[in-house]
């Protein structure tokens, strides 16, 4: 038989980007511990809707931890207390009966708040636009097996390529740095032969865009790695730094 718990939620409510926000308290009663965190918000919102009140705005889509749309800070932790987990995959069995949860949006000047827990992460798209790709036209690709890739490099590239672009790394970082996000994409393509021609230009352009978007710099807190739902390693930041130095040396 499913267990139930009672929780006190302190949720950040903010009408719009320039409004002043504040915490609103909700009592969540008889919450099934098999529920996901987003299903908890669904239940609270259903109550608000029936009472004619404005439901809590939160981004979400796939609810299986891969689209990168959801995210909130719970009791100071991006995506909540579990490691390697997005908010949608966090289950209520993780919380003790009677506890209080403080729920806030990602906080970074590069992620302006849209409403309540919803933020604008279009800065991430612009960083990718700066160079997070291989410039290959459709139809121009050579036979896939014409370039072998050592398995170890392919695996490392895949480790980095898993980034879901959720922004938890930025939310967790005291400097609101996007170095893990940028490092993951630069590493993914730098590790593959297909990414070589644009390797130097890519690293420089992406870092420049990151700075222009207002993200902070890395000072080795490693909070990003701890918060990352795909557990992307900070070694990708070290590789990013090496790639930037290399780019300065070789030009491009």
């Amino acid at each position, binding site marked *: 038989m*499913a267990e139930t718990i009672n929780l006190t939620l302190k949720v950040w409510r903010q009408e*719009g980007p320039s409004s002043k926000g504040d915490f609103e308290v909700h009592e969540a009663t008889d919450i*099934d511990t*098999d*529920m*996901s965190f*987003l299903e908890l918000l*669904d*239940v609270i919102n*259903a109550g*608000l*809707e*029936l009472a*004619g009140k*404005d*439901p809590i*705005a939160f981004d979400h*889509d*796939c*609810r*299986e931890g891969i*689209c990168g*749309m959801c995210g909130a800070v719970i009791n100071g932790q991006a995506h909540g207390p579990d490691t*390697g987990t997005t908010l949608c*995959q966090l*289950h209520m069995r993780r919380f003790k009966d009677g506890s209080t949860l403080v729920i806030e949006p990602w906080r970074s000047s590069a992620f302006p708040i*849209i409403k309540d827990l919803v933020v*604008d*992460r*279009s800065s*991430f*798209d612009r960083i*990718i*636009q*700066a160079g*997070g*790709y291989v410039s*290959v*036209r*459709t*139809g*121009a*690709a*050579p*036979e*896939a*097996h014409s*370039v*072998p*890739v050592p*398995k170890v490099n*392919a695996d490392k*590239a*895949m480790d980095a*390529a*898993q980034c*879901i*672009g959720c922004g938890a790394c930025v939310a967790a970082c005291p400097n609101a740095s996007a170095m893990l996000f940028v490092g993951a994409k630069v590493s993914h393509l730098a590790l593959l032969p*297909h*990414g070589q021609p644009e390797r130097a230009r890519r690293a420089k352009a992406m870092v420049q865009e990151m700075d222009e978007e207002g993200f902070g710099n890395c000072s080795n807190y490693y909070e990003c790695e701890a918060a990352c739902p795909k557990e992307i390693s900070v070694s990708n930041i070290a590789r990013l730094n090496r790639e930037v130095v290399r780019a300065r040396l070789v030009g491009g």
Partner: protein
Amino acid sequence: MSLHAKVPHGPISEKWTRHKFDMKLVNPANRRKHTLIVVGTGLAGASAAASLAEMGYNIKSFCIQDSPRRAHSIAAQGGINAAKNYQNDGDSVYRLFYDTVKGGDYRSREANVYRLAEVSVNIIDQCVAQGVPFAREYGGLLDNRSFGGAQVSRTFYARGQTGQQLLLGAYSALMKEVKRGGVEIFPRREMLELVVVDGHARGIVVRNLLTGKLESHAADAVILATGGYGNVFYLSTNAKACNVTAAWRAARRGAFFANPCYTQIHPTCIPVSGDYQSKLTLMSESLRNDGRIWVPKDPNEKRPPSQIPEEERHYYLEEKYPAFGNLVPRDVASRNAKEQCDNGKGVGGTGMAVYLDFREAIGRLGKDAIAARYGNLFQMYEKIVDSDPYKDPMMIFPAVHYTMGGLWVDYNLMSNLPGLHVLGEANFSDHGANRLGASALMQGLADGYFVIPYTIGNYIATEKSAHVDTDHPAFKEAETAAGERIEKLLAVRGKRTVDDFHRELGLLLWDKCGMGRNQGGLEEALRKIPEIREEYWQNVTVSGSQGTFNQTLERAGRVADFLEFAEMMVFDALQRKESCGGHFREESQTGEGEALRDDENFCYAAAWEFNGAGKEPILHKEPLEFEEVHLAQRSYK
């Protein structure tokens, strides 16, 4: 009105090559004078938008999420098929074509499927060049695995995140074109109307989800790549924002909707746990490569699975289908799971689950090898169910996953409404009545990278229609219609939530138009859907206002459209008295309980014309002609 599929003449293996030569071209200098709208940024939409922009067209790309990278293609786990024959196991374009037609239970259009198989090899080349990190062998070459419905290993994969990696590849190509200026992206926009001028699709009306403002966009052609309608069932493996609205709005403007009753129920999903459940989670079908499906022989079995000895387990798929075993196609696997549960042999708290067991594979290959293949899937399962699949078998049950039906398109992927093109899951043509695993990614990318870039040029070059801009009265009319619908929803101020209605509709469809369908049940659904719809418009509550970020209002519009679309789906299921693929009419089965087709009477695609809400739609038939593949009772024994 007659449906003309425009399939080129000639031998099947030469049709596409000839057609590419026969089609009219738009010269490079003229392409920049044309604007194309692409709605949706999944595999089909992103690959189309990027490829068309590279050719020189001006592209306006729309998506419902905050970034094009979030489209639901991202959640596809298992892989993508391609006829590369890298495993030297007898694969070929012809075999992939044959398997796909057979897998679709002979209800797809042969020529489209052949083209799909033909371009599959180019897709892999393209993705690898983009930096998609497919799984590789130690020699540095690409690895493959086998998938349901095939006896060769032709599936390329990137761990359990193939859809993610392919989508990020297409998204990166899209971002490249945004930077270059060929694509303008419009995220957080929802298409609410298709604008038709002089019988041609010439634009769309979208709602800016941040501000609530309705915006009109005009173009020379409109491409819909807006995915499937699986969320009509409320619970499905689709993302929450997946909906039928864009396709349904096009249908209401005259585009025919083909085979809406063909829905795929995927066999390996995590079972439902409670009423609060908001979605179902798929476990990749690739798990059936190494996992063995069983139920206890004794319906009264109470022991935990690890204590049930081998001889008391019923490996029903292996026993019934020795040639394919656990790798039978999805529709067959799902129906058999339902049959076991209906016979009281289901497991878990609800009795609506079967075991998927890795004990034998872990013994044979070791835990590390299994972790390397399925690690992230096992982790996901453990997170959701709180049980370790390395120790105890998974529990699985079928769930709605994919919809083979969609807007009717001809060989050029153009709907009966000239100028409206439909790609990927949103169209109907390639998967017939059942889609094989690892074929959705293939079709989305085939349509976007390698079909539409050729066929849309033919439309642009031959139509030469007059310039239309958003001052045209048709845009004003469409904006007004969309605005009035929103005001009407907000004005109801009733007592039930949007989700509450959506759940009610979903349960009804799951019961009456799900894994098994019969005349009585379908007729009952046709009585009940209008009742639910009527109550919806009198008793739904939508808080907030139009001019703001309002997620309840977004959902309310989608559910309103599902409530109309559902009826067409049931009409389709009712008229198709045969069983085929995912459409199992209980009245039409073999002595052994397999789907029994009726080729004499039902070998056609059913294309429905909207005829007003609440009225029976008009059926148009496209006869399906099989010149290559011999129609036969599917057998996986």
